[in-house]
């Protein structure tokens, strides 16, 4: 008893504190990942809610664009019915594309562009699009931090012990965006 015992106890206590610290960091990072995921969810829902409003405001002005409206409405119902994350990513990508096509068509309708209600909806829609991409950006940042922590020494040992599993990045898939243009010589 004496000096050596004290030192051993001190080392053990320090080690336990060290493990607790890493564990807490991992929990904090995982919560941040979950939290930023829910933020994406909130914004996607918001986009779904805005679409009927948008269609309603624009319909009166754009009677010859039935196809554009149908594309949006279909994409919306598909996105709302999506079950898995992969499905959702695909459907949301399609919806985003339908919306940007719609906003291009709007350019041909100066009356609509001058409508106060439409301008308000358009601002909300544009902002929601931004919020979705910023939420995605933040989610991917958080996932990167978390994954780094779970894979790097020494935190990876503790992550393995307590079953912290690495997360996937969230990429919105726009079908046309992913196609690589073919170049022939």
């Amino acid at each position, binding site marked *: 008893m004496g000096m050596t015992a004290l030192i051993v106890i001190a080392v053990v206590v320090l080690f336990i504190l060290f493990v607790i610290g890493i564990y807490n960091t991992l929990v904090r990072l995982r919560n*941040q990942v979950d*939290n*930023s995921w829910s*933020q994406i969810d909130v*914004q996607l829902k918001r986009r779904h809610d805005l679409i009927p409003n948008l269609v309603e405001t624009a319909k009166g002005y754009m009677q010859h664009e039935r196809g554009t409206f149908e594309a949006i409405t279909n994409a919306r119902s598909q996105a709302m019915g999506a079950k898995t994350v992969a499905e959702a990513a695909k459907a949301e990508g399609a919806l985003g594309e339908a919306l940007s096509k719609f*906003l291009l068509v709007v350019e041909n309708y100066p009356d609509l562009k001058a409508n106060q209600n439409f301008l*308000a909806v358009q*601002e*909300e829609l*544009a*902002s929601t699009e*931004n*919020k979705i991409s*910023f*939420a995605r*950006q*933040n989610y991917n*940042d*958080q996932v*990167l931090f978390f994954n780094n922590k779970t894979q790097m020494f020494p935190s990876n040992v503790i992550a393995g012990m307590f079953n912290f599993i690495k997360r996937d990045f969230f990429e919105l898939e726009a079908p046309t965006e992913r196609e690589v243009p073919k170049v022939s010589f």
Partner: protein
Amino acid sequence: MAAVLLLLGYIIGIAAVGTDGGYIGLIIATAIWLLLTLISFSSGDQILLSSSKAVPVTHKDYPQLFNVVEEMAISAGLPVPKVYIIPDHSPNAFATGRTPKSASVAVTAGLLGRLNRDELQGVVAHEMSHILHRDILFVTLAGIMLGSIILLSQVFMRGMCYGSMGSRRRYSSSSKGAGQAQVIILLIAILAAILAPIMAQLLYFALSRRREYLADAGSARLTRYPEGLASALEKIASDSSPQLAYANKVTAPMYIINPFKKGLSLSDWTSTHPPIAERVKILRSMAGASFKDYSDAYKNITGKRTIVPPLALTKEDVELRQAAAESRQQEIKSKTHHNIGDIIRQVNGFLFLTCTCGLKMKIPPNFKDSKILCPKCNNLIDLPRK
């Protein structure tokens, strides 16, 4: 800065009371500092906001400003701060508060009227980075420290003027040698009282300049679009309206650009902000949007060592994005003083009414009648009352 404050307190204490007085001086200095800290912790942001005449606004009043703030809060992963508008023509913005939860962002009407969406986003992101980096707390604390130092030396100097008669009598009663030593200590104290505020200010300003660069880097990273902030800074710098009415030297570092116009050309030690031209150049030469890209651009432009802390310099792949299509098309050239005046009026409770003949009326809040006569078509219009 704390060291400057305590040293000043110690020297003044010795000079005023005698060799044992150093500790009394220390205690007084600490007490002043504690008192000011308590005040500013409980209501510092409110004091700042109300002294700059800021008015709180909601999503309903200014959808775009509010949306942009929300977007940046999401991007930074922070709670949405309170949004204020300062009814002033000069374009500027600041963030305040103690923690991200209690933070506020204020922009002037002049800023809102001049910038397009992307530029506004860049400015708000800069303020959001101040919140994210806890600069708002730092500026509050450092500002208090600076305030305490100035207060202490002012009190001492005033006391010297009034109390010189009484102390001279005391010196004459002691022996000649001790009297000389006291005079020397007194001289040192006066020197310290003059130098300490200057030193503390230089320190404060140096720290604040560094934080401005970091907030610029943070803004680029949050928006992935440094051009937005760069062109906003250019617009703000080329603005010719008079300087902000309600700002002072201690609150200056909180603004996105120095609210004092004369300081703009100075890039030396006495400036709270780095020169705008340099900030714009750095932002424009960024290859990506990460802190590493900003740091590289900073080193290239200034030729100095990086200001970004090494922890943030991890290699990350952050690509720049395109300008929002909307802002490229609607580079509205006529968003002028007329527009800014409207924002100021709306913030001040003016009512906006469009008559059936198309005439737009701005009705001041002290207009009491329930009906108003349109000056163009002589229609009587009912005023909507809240």
